[in-house]
């Protein structure tokens, strides 16, 4: 049996609501700065780590939200990236390996007035915490999940991760990795994610624009951030950081625009598969225009499959951005509509008594 939830109808969870609706905002024209979001803790990542750039971008972006600092929470798991909350002067929890989405779900479900962010890595989110990630996404909890993907285990010093390439030689795979990697974007789309994007540590402007869109989205947002590990997997995304190479390889996803580079464009063949072809050879009728709000995730999934291990084509940007009710809003709505006012002692007395009572006289 199913029942029509028909909600949430109003309040912060109403259709089209901003991701931070319900979170107290700064008033009186006051504004915070990057410095306000910088904690007094010494940052302890390795020199050259991509995490520095992401931290700077996040600290630089957060003031833009206009939220009260005390209403922002960062929850992380375990791994290099998961040290992130210590360096932000917000509320934060550095939890245990893989469990941040579950912990953040409990927090978001009970606190409508918080902007909740999860910071995780490829090992944390996709290996030990894979279950929690996919369930947070399908439930569409209003969480912003930043997945730092460096295709390696850094904190444990150089074992292969679920995004490492087949054949990758690491400390734990001296003869080459046997595992087929996950594509985090494909995985998220398969898990019913309502917002999925990819960006890169070194592209501050693009990273910030994706963070902005993720924050605006009401529901789970999975943001994959390509991040360089200078110690154990250095340079793995270097071709995307070289201006010329990047221009030839990165397929920019912009809503309503053709997907491609200056020279190439994505076309759809008769069977619905996508391919990257030179613009000159493309049949204009078959050129793919990106529609991030398409209800059917198939097109976004097909775009995610254009990735190639040699980074020959890499779609970047927002793959999917659709509205559907969030778990936390809906849960609050169920409670709100069941409530009949403040719970009194008398209400609890009646609850304890139930329906069948008898009385024994003195």
């Amino acid at each position: 049996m199913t029942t029509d939830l028909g909600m949430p109808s109003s309040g912060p969870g109403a259709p089209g609501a901003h991701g931070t609706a319900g979170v107290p905002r700064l008033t009186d024209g006051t504004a915070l700065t990057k410095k306000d979001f910088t904690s007094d803790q010494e940052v302890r990542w390795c020199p050259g780590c991509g995490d520095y750039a992401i931290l700077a971008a996040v600290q630089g972006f957060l003031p833009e939200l206009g939220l009260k600092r005390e209403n922002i929470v960062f929850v992380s798991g375990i791994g290099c990236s998961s040290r992130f909350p210590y360096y932000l002067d917000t509320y934060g929890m550095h939890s245990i390996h893989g469990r941040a989405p579950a912990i953040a779900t409990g927090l978001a479900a009970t606190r409508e007035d918080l902007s909740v962010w999860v910071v995780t890595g490829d090992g944390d989110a996709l290996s030990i915490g894979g279950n929690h990630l996919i369930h947070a996404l399908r439930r569409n909890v209003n969480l912003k999940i930043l997945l730092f993907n460096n295709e390696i285990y850094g904190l444990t010093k150089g074992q292969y991760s679920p995004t490492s390439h087949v054949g990758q030689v690491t400390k734990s795979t001296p003869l080459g990795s046997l595992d087929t990697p996950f594509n985090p974007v494909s995985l998220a789309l398969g898990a019913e994610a309502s917002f999925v994007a990819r960006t890169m540590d070194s592209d501050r402007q693009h990273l910030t624009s994706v963070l902005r869109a993720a924050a605006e989205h009401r529901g789970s947002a999975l943001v994959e951030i390509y991040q360089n590990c200078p110690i154990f997997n250095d340079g793995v995304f270097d071709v995307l950081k070289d201006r010329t190479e990047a221009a030839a390889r990165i397929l920019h996803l912009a809503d309503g625009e053709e997907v491609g580079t200056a020279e190439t464009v994505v076309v759809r063949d008769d069977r619905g598969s996508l391919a990257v072809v030179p613009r000159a050879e493309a049949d204009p009728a078959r050129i793919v225009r990106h529609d991030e709000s398409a209800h059917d995730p198939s097109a976004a999934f097909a775009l995610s499959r254009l990735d190639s291990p040699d980074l020959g084509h890499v779609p970047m940007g927002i793959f999917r951005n659709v509205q559907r009710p969030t778990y936390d809003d809906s849960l609050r709505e169920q409670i709100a509509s069941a409530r009949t006012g403040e719970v009194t002692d008398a209400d609890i007395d009646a609850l304890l008594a139930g329906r069948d009572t008898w009385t024994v006289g003195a």
Partner: protein
Amino acid sequence: MSAKLVQKLDRVVIRFAGDSGDGMQLTGDRFTSQTALLGNDLSTLPNFPAEIRAPQGTLPGVSSFQLHFADHNVLTPGDAPDVLVAMNPAALKANLRDLPRGAAIIVNTDEFTKRNLSKVGYVENPLDDGSLDSYDVHPVALTSIAVEALVSFTDLTRKEKERAKNMFALGLLSWLYTRPMDGTEAFLKAKFADKPEILEANLAALRAGFNYGETTEDFAVAYEVAPAAMPAGTYRNVTGNVALSLGLVAAAHRAHLPLFLGSYPITPASDILHTLAGLKRYGVATMQAEDEIAGVGAALGASFGGALGVTTTSGPGLALKAETIGLAVSLELPLIVCDIQRGGPSTGLPTKTEQADLLQALFGRNGESPVAVVAPATPADCFDVAVEAVRIATTYRTPVIVLSDGYLANGSEPWRLPRTADLPDIAVEFATEPNAVDDKGQPTFHPYLRDPETLARPWAIPGTPGLEHRVGGIEKADVTGNISYDPDNHDHMTRLRQAKIDGIADTIEPLVVDDPTDDADVLVLGWGSTFGPIAAGVRLARATGARVAQAHLRHLNPFPANTGDVLRSYQRVIVPEMNLGQLAMLLRAKYLVDIESHTSVRGLPFQAGELADVIATAVASVSDVPLKEAAK
């Protein structure tokens, strides 16, 4: 009322047994409810297989429900049934060995077919071969009489009519023990409100069973069990799982905290999730998580945000939650973990009771990771223990593990309702102001600056301006909470966390000893659900003149402050447990007392008679006075 003879009894133990699809649990529940409303004291023991529908008519498919009711205080569901209702040959065979000679057996003869008999290995029909001669057998064609009674229900199939046989049996037993049926009629009306035909059929079958008792010559006597003398008050019947759920809700109300349950379904804990999921009206949020780890993780996340985070599970789930409980120990946040124990290891005996998770609860985590552990003694006590768990968790900012078990979870007893206003005031104060100044003289917040009395750290929830801070599982510097790998600091913090838990002993009631003669040399000490069987065993032993003291631990960590003194004041201390001696091991280690362990792991509660024998033997060994013949 009947024109037949009515005889008074002081106590009766009935066991309803049938195929798992026969509705025995429902029948037992309804009979219990009728009995409770009549004012008898009672105790119940449902016993069912883990399979939802094992092959019909087989021994593994037998489901039973035992009820002990009396005109006096009842402590257990009873060692042996006075009456067995056997709906098929499998139910007879599976339960016969528990019956004392002379017990009454009401059998459904319709099911005693050649095929059903051979399914359970009966070569001869036990109803005909004289093997039941020492019992008081009442053969009743329950199915066919029930179907006959429904002859006017032309729209119902035979199968649907047959299904009403449990209501016929309930009606018959209601007559036999003069139980009012209005409660069951109201229950059926609510249950089948949108199926009027089925409702009428069930009501007709129920009344037909009652009338059958009154008219048939097979039952010459009806029985009455007078109401028990119980303390004045308003009562209801309650199972342990429901009492625990209600305790959590009432405690959250008294603490002024929203209740959040993160849980993954597992037998025998799932009923708590079901119960709380239906209480949204009281502001209760429940989440069925993707796994046990997510259940406790979400609960901890809710606690971080200022809710009362609760997770419910059974043994295998507690194992999975261990790492998150360790995080809660490190974060020093309130968290309630309810472990409704079942037989282990591994999947073990999902529907059977055991109390073998005690050591897991105390020590089943990495590192020095102390948590408070409490255990209810009876189904109704689950309410009080839930309130106590919340008091400890919120006062000391610590995880608390509640160790209930399958016997308490599904068993029921009358519960004298407390008044909500009389429950302990456990209102929580969140931190709202900075509690220190930094080296520049600016107000700052130190998340690990402790309350000098309780050693609890401040609970500063997100949304509180000026108290922004980070917590995590890495060791923290004392006071500031900053990451610290300093050896002395870790040693200090480890001892502080232990001292905080040890300090809970200052606020718990001392261990109370029940020793009517005040000169016993033998103490029987229990914990958790063994309370009823131990108390009943002690009662039997005392009836033979044995001088024996009884005490029961509600707090397993820390123990009450006087525990060592109590143990050392007896010549012999016997600890019965449904494990291989876990509490005994703890007590021996902590107090250097030569505890005698008496253990059983049969998936069933102890029998009072068995414990009475153990006690009598112990008492005889230290006493010059010969005991009387046991008056069981």
